[in-house]
């Protein structure tokens, strides 16, 4: 069971700190949990694990494809591998290795692709990943997650540790807004209705959840009632929830830090179309463009990922 956090500010802890601490906690209980790094241990803080659990930390050097192959294969001997690198290298750069040595060979691999989409900020267009969900959604049996905050991330890491298969977790390294109450639990394959509403259904995930909630709150004041779903598991997708909650709505909006092609928006569109819903859908996200350098706030504006953009889309439709 989950509950929303009363404190809605920025979390004190960075997401990478939660990731590392959760892994260390798991390593304390299970010697088979391994953390692999490809020379970004300073960026992920995974390098600190070397001091706490030296046998559970594997430094691969700058060789992401090799890391995927090595890590996934340790699962043949019962290890539980987690790997980290920036999301472009955790997806585009290693897609075939994840496909074959990971998913197809039925090995286990937990992937932390950090700083997805506009979270790449100063690293710029070469490091921006608007297509990681697209790539991984299309590989059978791979599960794709975009946790909204530290609480959800911690729960997710613990949950996938007990599961076999390939899990891709895209998350910011830096601190994000609090969404959930400490100790909340979730379910893989289940979305969370984090705000009730009657006119519009807004589905989002990851770093945009707070933005979506803020937009919904402001729209409420204007007389438009918006229901918000945190769809942190993009695959497997909670189809039932979408079909149930879209009923009676005038508009469905998806809002994602990802290309509108084959991300959350596409996934929701597929469900709606298959059901012959006939309800209008607006897919908000990156309009099939490349990334670029700039601050997170600049990029949010540039790619139309602010609450103001959500409000505008909803207004335009509802007026």
């Amino acid at each position, binding site marked *: 069971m989950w509950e929303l956090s009363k404190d809605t500010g920025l979390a004190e802890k960075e997401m990478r700190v939660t990731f590392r601490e959760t892994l260390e906690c798991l390593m304390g209980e299970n010697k088979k949990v391994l953390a692999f790094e490809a*020379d*970004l241990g300073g960026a992920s803080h995974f390098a600190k694990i070397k001091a706490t659990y030296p046998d559970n930390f594997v430094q691969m050097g*700058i060789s992401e494809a090799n890391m995927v192959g090595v890590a996934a294969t340790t699962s043949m001997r019962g290890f539980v591998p987690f790997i980290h690198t920036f999301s472009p290298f955790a997806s585009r*750069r290693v897609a075939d290795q994840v496909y074959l040595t990971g998913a197809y060979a039925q090995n286990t691999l937990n992937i932390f692709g950090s700083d997805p989409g506009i979270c790449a900020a100063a690293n710029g267009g*070469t490091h921006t990943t608007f297509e990681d969900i697209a790539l991984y959604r299309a590989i059978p049996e791979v599960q794709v997650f975009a946790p909204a905050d530290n609480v959800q991330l911690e729960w997710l890491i613990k949950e996938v540790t007990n599961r076999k298969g390939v899990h891709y977790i895209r998350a910011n390294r830096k601190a994000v807004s609090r969404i959930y109450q400490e100790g909340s639990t979730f379910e893989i394959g289940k979305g969370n209705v984090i705000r009730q509403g009657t006119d519009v259904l807004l589905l989002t995930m990851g770093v945009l959840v707070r933005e979506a909630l803020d937009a919904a709150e402001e729209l409420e004041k204007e007389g438009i009632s918006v229901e918000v779903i945190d769809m942190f598991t993009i695959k497997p997708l909670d189809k039932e929830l979408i079909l149930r909650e879209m009923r009676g709505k005038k508009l469905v909006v998806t809002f994602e830090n990802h290309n509108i092609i084959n991300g959350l928006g596409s996934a929701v569109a597929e469900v709606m179309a298959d059901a012959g819903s006939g309800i209008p859908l607006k897919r908000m996200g990156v309009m099939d463009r490349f990334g*670029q350098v700039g601050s997170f706030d600049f990029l949010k504006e540039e790619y139309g990922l602010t609450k103001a953009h959500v409000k505008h889309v909803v207004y335009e439709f509802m007026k």
Partner: protein
Amino acid sequence: MDTEEVNELKVLSAKMRVELLKMLKRRTYGHLGGSMSIIEVLSTLYGKHLKHDPLNPNWDDRDYLVLSKGHSGPGLYAALAVNGYFEKEILGSLNEGGTSLPSHPDRILTPGIDATTGSLGQGTSVAAGLGYALRLEKASQYVYLIVGDGELNEGQCWEAFQFIAHNKLNHVIVLIDENKRQLDGFTVDILNPFDIQEKMIAFGFHTMKVDGGSELEISNAIDEAKKIEDQAVCIVLDTVKGQGIPYFEEMVDNHSVKFCEQDYQAVDHAIQKLQDFIQKAGA
């Protein structure tokens, strides 16, 4: 090269360091270590060996420079600005929204940039591709490839090297910045590279190793490399990460520095010293 020519290159290096430091100081952070260690090779290339025209960056007969270790973009931007590709003021826009100077080089955005890099390893194939195309065209120009020692962890580098060596692409001059460090620490501790020179020899390259802080040694090696006709060539640059400023050379983690108060002082001090040097040289 006579003493005067060497001194001119030293002044060029100093000018580039000044611009690099100012740029990162303004930004408050950046990839300092790996930018500093390529300053001498860049000044030797732009000041002497590279066939290029800042007023016509897309000149068809130019030599190409591929900075495969793309995170050292700021070092290259300093070189381009000092050599007249664009106004030095533009350096202040590094990483800002809408800039033509993103953290990693982008051939579509920046005059003088020939290769889009940042995903380590990929630039080696870019250099191989350029070299191969030029060979097909029977063109005479050179491709200079700068690759990091940590970057050599990437298998793609060795795929490209095999291709370059097999095809005897002697107009692709491979320059390895052996500063002995990568992001998480020393290369020997992360993934032991063993003897890079020996490795390159084993891969079929005519390989030299020189002091990467010496414009003279680098220049002489490039002269020698150009004499090699039926073999791939490689120059291993023995460098120091953070090269040229003891304070940063000694810094434990100087890969990407977020400046603190003490760092700013070191930057100011270094800029002052470099400017004095430039002034004394009468340039």
